[in-house]
């Protein structure tokens, strides 16, 4: 043990003591810090930006950041404790915090409530929150007003910090102004200015940038629209030529009406990253087209798949993900009835699809063709479409159907090309065209974008918007490309010889599930090449 001079220890202790005294000095008389409670994430962000590093202020948030709007929030005992110990409560107001009022006052009669939206010019419109649309903060212009309200309230509660609050608020407001200008500039290029939103979140922003909200999918959050409402909405979208539906990633994306090719290029993409792959509009309830129960496939005494339960829902895009050798293709083959299995695969058909066995379209991962095969694209269509042997020529009906579906896939010029000489992307388009021609109930795609160029991936997106339009069939796609999965799939089935997880895309693709599937070292990362996909990489390094 080293010898420490006594005087040294005393000096250290007194310096420490003085430092503490000095730190406390500005708030002398109010030794307690100012406790600011914020209602939900935007309020917390605004408040923290205004407070900055000002000493003697503690900011606490009531709702966890992962929660969206505090629409139906119910107070917990922990929240009541937070309220009881707070001096200032920063809320949005306009009815956003339904839980404000009596319980809060009872928990803490002295609390000062700041309704930051007070100075915003309200938009009225039917909503569960009340008459006034409460989503004011989504517009950066409103955010500026609300930040100024917070600054005012903080300065009143703690005059000593006023200068610091002003400085921080000024800096933050200038950033918000820049953001507002960016929105304005982005909005200038829009040709069509009607949009549909998930619920009325974008109203204030739309007002700022001169876009009209002509419809809402869920007028009350969590309350699914009825068939009649959806029909009305679909008509609105068609008639008013709505180029974009604004979605919110935390809510289900299944029930957007998609009559209009909603991935329009002039749409409002910069505003929201989620352009939404979209489901069917056949009614208010979604039917399963395919139910898999306890499916087990054995090959050579080895269980390739064991105890799989999964559903395909009508008109939805379901992605099948998993590492190499996980049994993805085997599952497709089982659905196609090409491998023996135990368990059950049930096909369910909606009445509108008619009777009989469902048509299953299948686009294999690879179609190994020798380049010399004397088979043209037209022959390929004829082989599965007409009774007349192909050596007697293609019938007129075959020829017309082939030309039409090739046109839909953007490859009409390939009609007479030899099948074996097509590039990977061209062959994919031809296979898609063939699948489209037969109007399948279920379409199985095995690695649709592997080995395909960027144009090929664009086709995939076009193809999905076709699904939106026709909303006829369920799509099951095997993909390694998680960016494709997250952008286009409604549901995900994760396989690794057994079912790892399944459910809505946003809920299922968690780090834990990915680790369970690919091993602990798996992670999602972005390639630097031009199309910038996210790929999953397991130790196999594919």
């Amino acid at each position, binding site marked *: 043990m080293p010898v420490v001079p006594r005087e040294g220890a005393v000096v250290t202790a007194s310096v420490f003591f003085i430092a503490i005294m000095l730190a406390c000095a500005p708030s002398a008389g109010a030794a307690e810090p100012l406790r600011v409670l914020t209602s939900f994430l935007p309020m917390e962000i605004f408040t923290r930006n205004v407070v900055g590093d000002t000493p003697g202020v503690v900011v606490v948030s009531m709702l966890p950041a992962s929660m969206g709007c505090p629409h139906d929030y119910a107070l917990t005992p922990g929240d009541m404790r937070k309220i009881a110990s707070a001096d200032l409560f920063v809320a949005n107001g306009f009815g956003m915090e339904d839980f404000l009022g009596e319980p809060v006052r009872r928990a803490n009669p002295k609390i000062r409530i700041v309704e930051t939206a007070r100075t915003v010019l309200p938009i009225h419109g039917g909503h569960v929150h009340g008459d006034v649309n409460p989503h004011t903060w989504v517009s950066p212009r409103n955010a500026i007003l609300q930040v100024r309200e917070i600054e005012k309230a903080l300065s009143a509660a703690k005059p000593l910090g006023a200068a610091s609050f002003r400085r921080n608020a000024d800096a933050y407001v200038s950033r918000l102004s820049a953001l507002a200008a960016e929105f304005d500039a982005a909005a200038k290029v829009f040709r069509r200015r009607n949009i549909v939103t998930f619920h009325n979140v974008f109203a204030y922003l739309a007002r700022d940038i001169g876009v009209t909200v002509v419809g809402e999918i869920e007028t009350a959050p969590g309350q699914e629209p009825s068939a009649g409402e959806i029909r009305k909405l679909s008509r609105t979208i068609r008639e008013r030529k709505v180029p974009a539906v604004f979605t919110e990633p935390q809510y289900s994306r299944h029930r957007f009406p998609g009559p209009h090719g909603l991935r329009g290029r002039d749409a409002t993409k910069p505003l929201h990253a989620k352009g939404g792959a979209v489901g069917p509009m056949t009614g208010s309830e979604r039917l399963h087209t395919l139910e898999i129960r306890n499916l087990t496939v054995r090959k*050579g005494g080895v269980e390739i798949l064991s105890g799989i339960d999964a559903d395909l829902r009508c008109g939805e895009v379901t992605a099948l993900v998993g590492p190499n050798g996980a049994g993805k293709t085997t599952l497709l*083959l089982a659905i*196609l*009835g*090409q491998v023996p299995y135990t368990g059950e695969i049930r096909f369910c058909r909606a009445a509108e699809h008619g009777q009989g066995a469902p048509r*299953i*379209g*299948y686009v*294999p991962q690879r*179609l*190994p*063709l020798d380049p*010399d*095969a*004397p*088979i*043209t694209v*037209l*022959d*390929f269509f*004829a*082989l*599965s479409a*007409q*009774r007349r*042997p*192909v*050596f*007697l*020529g293609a019938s007129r009906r075959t020829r017309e159907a082939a030309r039409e579906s090739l046109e839909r896939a953007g490859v009409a010029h390939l009609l*007479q090309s*030899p*099948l074996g*000489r097509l590039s990977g992307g061209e062959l994919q388009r031809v296979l898609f065209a063939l699948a489209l021609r037969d109007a399948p109930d279920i379409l199985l795609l095995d690695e649709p974008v592997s080995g395909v160029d960027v144009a090929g991936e664009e086709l995939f997106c076009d193809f999905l918007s076709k699904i939106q339009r026709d909303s006829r069939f369920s799509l099951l796609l095997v993909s390694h490309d998680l960016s494709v999965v997250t952008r286009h799939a409604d549901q995900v089935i994760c396989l690794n010889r057994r079912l790892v997880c399944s459910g809505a895309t946003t809920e299922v693709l968690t780090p834990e599930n990915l680790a369970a599937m690919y091993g602990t070292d798996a992670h999602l990362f972005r390639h630097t090449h031009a199309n910038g996909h996210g790929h999953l990489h397991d130790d196999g390094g594919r």
Partner: protein
Amino acid sequence: MESILSGAFALMDRLLPFAFAEPAFMKRALLALLLTAPAAAALGVPLVQHRMAFFSDAIGHSAFTGVALGILLGVSPSWTMVAFGVLVAVAITLVKGRTELSSDTVIGVFFSTVVALGIAIISREKGLTRNLQAFLYGDPLAVTDAELLWMAALLLLVSAYLAFLYNRILLLGIHEGFARTKGVRVPAVEISFALVVALVVTAAIHTVGILLVTALLVIPAAAARNVARGAASALWISVGVAALSGIAGIVASWYLDTATGATVVLAAAACFAVTALFRASRPRE
């Protein structure tokens, strides 16, 4: 029956007023080739698409054992050859569908087993070797009326079969899984195709022999691949090449005094060479 054949011969006399076509045996040989070669060539197109050249070779060689069995049992070897060929074809197809082994491995096993059995039989019966010559090298000049009628019936059968199933066979040749989703009943198509190939192979053995019978299926189809642009032209070019090399081979063998079957195959090979040159001279798109 006989009247059908004599009618055909009379027609040939009018159409081919040449010295080579005068003897009856030449007319028979020509008729035999015009009946079997186009049928074999038509089957050859999907056969090549299915990569089944080795399969047809195995059937051809199983005929060797079939003939040996016929002679051994005192039955007409023409019919034991057909029966044994069909048996082997169906067996290979069934086994192929039930193992993980690749099809050429399965065929290789059957091929050598069957040929070994044939050789074992012949080695026991010393007098057999001479009778086998006709089957090994083919003897179209000695074809019987019954065989000609059988070949005619077979040509009709093959035509009907291909008219009915050609699309499904070709689709299966492109991709099995894909064909299944288009409603092709794979086992039925595979077995029926193997059966028809076996029938045609055993019939064609009379014209070009066991050793060369695969050539009648593969070479015209290969020549067609060199020049055909689509599925229709591939089949018709293949059939045309077969008919042309049949006639050219017979005429050449008459003037060159060579084995007829071998000369026919050489003529087909010449057609292949011409189409290959044509293809090489054509700019590739």
